[in-house]
């Protein structure tokens, strides 16, 4: 478990979190390499299907990062995303995954350090939870190979 390196998919809004990730890079901030970023035009673009498919394809944790509440480039996209993330938590719980494997964060494009902090915190959270129960079999196969 200690050497477990989670795979994390981060759905990032182009106008905030994606910019924050870029800024984190420019600032030479270190954050875990476990994060796979998928850029969205707005966090409101996420649907439960996106999030479920990420888990299905092998993600151990998934998060959505949108603009600060009240600051959405498309007025209320982040407020659309928030209940969808909460709803999807219930859907993954039905399947037998911990709802903590999915989260929504809010940040602005100027918050590079916050992006790095969220990446670290979330990676640590997933590390504590362990591999997704869906991936256990795949991992065993990999180890055997």
């Amino acid at each position, binding site marked *: 478990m200690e050497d477990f390196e989670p795979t994390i998919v981060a759905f990032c809004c182009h106008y905030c979190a994606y910019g924050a990730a870029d800024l984190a890079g420019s600032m030479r901030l270190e954050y875990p390499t476990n994060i796979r970023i998928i850029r969205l035009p707005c966090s409101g673009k996420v649907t439960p299907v996106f999030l479920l498919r990420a*888990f299905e394809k092998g993600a151990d944790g998934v998060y959505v990062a949108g603009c600060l509440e009240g600051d959405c480039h498309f007025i209320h996209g982040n407020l659309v995303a928030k209940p969808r993330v909460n709803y999807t938590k219930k859907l993954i719980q039905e*399947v037998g*995954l911990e709802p903590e494997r999915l989260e929504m964060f809010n940040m602005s494009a100027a918050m590079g350090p916050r992006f790095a902090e969220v990446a670290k915190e979330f990676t640590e959270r997933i590390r504590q939870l362990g591999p997704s129960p*869906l991936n256990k*079999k795949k991992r065993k196969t990999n180890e055997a190979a």
Partner: protein
Amino acid sequence: MVIGKRKPFEEILKMIEPYKKIMVLGCGGCVTVCLTGGHDEVRVLSSQLRMARDKDGNQLEIIEKTIERQCDPEYLDQVQDLVPQVEAVLSMACGAGVQFMAERYQATPVFPALDTTFVGGSLKEGYYVERCQTCGQCKLAYTGGICPIARCSKSLLNGPCGGSTNGKCEIDPEVDCAWQLIIDRLTNLGMMDKYEQILDIVDWRTNRDGGPRKMIREDFQR
């Protein structure tokens, strides 16, 4: 539209337990509009089912498909090449759609993924309320366009019962008293004379008590 609600996930999982390859079939009609059985919901349920089965090491193959309507034979033909490829069909249509599928494809078990709940409409996105009980004898002309059969908890026809308090029904303080709504509306319309008109005892045979119903347009029969 017909409103449906997805069955508990555990129940769905149990229904398809014996099968290795199924089709999850959505319906593009009412259940798409009420966000329970359309294209997106097919993808969500399929994802969940695959994950749940994968977790137990018992993989499930799913064909995801949504057709225009499941309550119409001409659209059911669109899946005639797919149905023989699967062991069972999980239909996300209302009860009518599930039955039409089962009738059309005799050799394949068809299971319902939804509980069909009522006929209603959306007050806002994702919020559905009952408005019609399909009683077969519309009374709306006498009641200001508000249905006492569907919306009065007792389906009373000639005024409220004693349980009407401050415009709410005694069964739940959040439920409007249909008769309060009717009287308010008739008053606003200046049509309170309608309220004086006594509505006769209902012949419930046109509801469900006369057995399964049908409606035939003769000029379309060939």
